[in-house]
């Protein structure tokens, strides 16, 4: 019974890997009328990518409308694929996600927040590498004073990437770590300050208050900072990521998202729901555990990957 179930799923997964685009195209080729069953297949693809039921239904509805408009479709396969890519691109607004190319602040301060284990510290390591590659002087602030060995973890990343680090004792006030880091950055002439924070569930009021306080202290140490506040999301996270984004945005005025762990099979489609809901651009994606495994977010690639196995 068990092994049968697993077989069933393996087969299902294999099919997934075969390439969804292929599948859609095939479905459409067999039923060029674009009927409800076709729409359901497309719905399945979107939901399995974690896009979420509301955005999915909306996209499907507009596709249905487009089909019903009676417009003569020469090539239904291409029409559907292009339509879907367009819809999703519209939601993601990649032009907004364009990385800050001209950094005018010195130091440019980036605060990293998110739930436990999503990849905050690793993303900071990768960002440090990226900025170092651009010839910038980077300083890391070990603001996670809570999790066991979180400071050591960031310390190793500082060494790896040749960055400076400001750290206190475990259990110290993270706001004061951030404060000291900004002072140090100003006196040492750092270009970039990356501030790590402890993982926190968006539902814990006191922890969310704490991150608010960190932000206030940063602003006090360097008026106008942080210049960016990025929420790290784990690509394997499902619909709860929407709630995470909402809560963190409310508490610390996010400027964008980092989508970590996209190197697995999870599609991270939930960022579509988030972009739709909050107008928050995805800035970077994490594609592994190494220092170079960080990419600028590319909406075209992302959309294509959604429909590929």
């Amino acid at each position, binding site marked *: *019974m*068990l092994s049968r*179930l*697993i077989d069933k*799923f*393996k087969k*299902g*997964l294999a099919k997934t890997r075969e390439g969804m685009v292929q599948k859609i195209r095939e479905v459409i080729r067999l039923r060029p009328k674009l009927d409800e069953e076709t729409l359901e297949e497309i719905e*399945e693809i979107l*939901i*399995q*990518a*974690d896009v*979420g*039921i509301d955005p999915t239904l909306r996209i499907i509805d507009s596709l249905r409308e487009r089909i019903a408009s009676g417009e003569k479709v020469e090539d239904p396969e291409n029409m559907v694929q292009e339509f879907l890519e367009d819809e999703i691109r519209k939601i993601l607004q990649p032009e907004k996600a364009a990385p800050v190319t001209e950094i005018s602040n010195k130091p440019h301060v980036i605060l990293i927040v998110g*739930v*436990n*284990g*999503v*990849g905050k510290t690793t993303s900071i*390591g990768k960002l440090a590498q990226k900025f170092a590659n651009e010839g910038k002087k980077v300083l890391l602030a070990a603001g996670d004073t*809570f*999790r*066991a*060995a*979180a400071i*050591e*973890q960031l*310390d*190793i*990343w500082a060494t790896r990437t040749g960055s400076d680090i400001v750290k206190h004792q475990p259990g110290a006030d993270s706001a004061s770590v951030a404060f000291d880091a900004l002072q140090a950055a100003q006196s040492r002439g750092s270009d970039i300050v990356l501030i790590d924070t402890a993982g926190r*569930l*968006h*539902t814990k009021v006191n922890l969310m208050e704490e991150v608010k306080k960190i932000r206030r202290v940063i602003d006090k140490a360097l008026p106008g900072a942080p210049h960016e506040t990025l929420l790290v999301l*784990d690509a*394997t*996270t*499902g*619909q*709860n*990521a929407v*709630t995470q984004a909402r809560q963190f945005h409310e508490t610390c005025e996010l400027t964008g998202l980092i989508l970590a*762990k996209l*190197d*697995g*099979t*999870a*599609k991270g489609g*939930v960022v579509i729901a988030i972009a739709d809901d909050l107008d928050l651009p995805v800035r970077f994606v994490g594609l592994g*555990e190494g220092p170079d495994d960080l990419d600028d977010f590319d909406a075209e690639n992302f959309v294509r990957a959604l429909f590929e196995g």
Partner: protein
Amino acid sequence: MFELLTERLEGAFKKLRGHGRLSESNIDEAMREVRRALLEADVNYKVARSFIAKVKEEAIGQEVLKTVSPSQQVVKVVHDQLVGLMGNQSAGLTLSETPPSVVMMVGLQGAGKTTTSGKLGLLLKSQGKNPLLVAADVYRPAAVDQLRILGEQVGVPVYHAPEGTDPVDICKQAMDRATENHHDVVILDTAGRLHVDDERMDEVFNIREAVTPSDILFVCDAMTGQDAVAAASAFYEKLNFTGVVLTRMDSDTRGGAALSIREVTGVPIKFIGTSEKPEGLEIFHPDRMASRILGMGDVLTLVERAQSTIDEDQAKKIEQKLRTASFTFDDFLEQMAQIRKMGPLDQLMKMIPGVSKAMPDMQVDEGAFSHIEAIIFSMTKDERAKPHIINGSRRKRIAKGSGQNIQEVNKLIKQFNMMQKMMKRMSRMEKSGRMAMPMLQ
């Protein structure tokens, strides 16, 4: 954000009137809502589909109960199926007969393996065991330090090897250490790995081969989305893990991954992580998880209590009386007793969909109930059966007899009359099959 599934089902069942059976057509719409609830909870698309098929089969043909609305009834079917699928009862850790037993933690990066290892260490220690924690994550920077610190916090020794030692060797050496120092349980904290990373999957397989664990726990973030199925089946295929730990259950996630994993592997979920602290590890309860996935609070408890405490005959009798408007104070007493059997009133009220939203700080005065009882007990048989004969002087007598003031008596009689009126109105719509709880209006 999450409406109660039951409330949504109300919509789907608007057309369905009390009598008769749940049929294919009226259930289809309801199943769409159920499916939606499951998908919102991150239950895998395919798992949701096969689940719905099963529920439909179960629900079709069921007689609509009198005491609950059809939607509540369907939710109950859905819930029971969910509980059944998730294992009906809690399962504990499996240890081998000859110590040391090996418990191996596996999973994706950032799932919570290290924290859970520390928690398990504490749990075992509190059960009088002598566990050994093993730091076998050689990849994540400072992972070894993390476990060492956690071990210190919970007072459980940690085995770790010099940098550069192969994880398989670390685990083998740890076994020797355990035998030497008479540890009865060895907890292996392995590195996080992606199920598509063949090299690392081979590594964890080799660890398993080297130390034959008695329990292999797949640690999974309760917030995981659709991909939980892919990760869990790949890990299962490679390692045949024997238990699941769901972490971050203290978040507001609906946790549909639990159902997905269980459905594709058949392996029991054993523990849930409920805080960052070492004590935050609890036994998994399938029934609670089912309610959570459905996003439905306590409505089930209400349905269950109603089913077990209000017997159908009683309900029918009262209903009959309502229809003929022959409802008396005696019936009233009886009904009150039935309702009170179900539990504290404000608790009951809060279980009714929509009530806690509409009246967040509603309080029901239990004392008022005993006052009402006292007043009714001071009525004569005649008065109870024919409330309309209760005139001014009778009211005075009843007030005196029950130790209540006349206003209270007036109020009750007024309420009773209103209630009768309302019930007549309700009896016209009574076919919707809803539970009649006029006292709670």
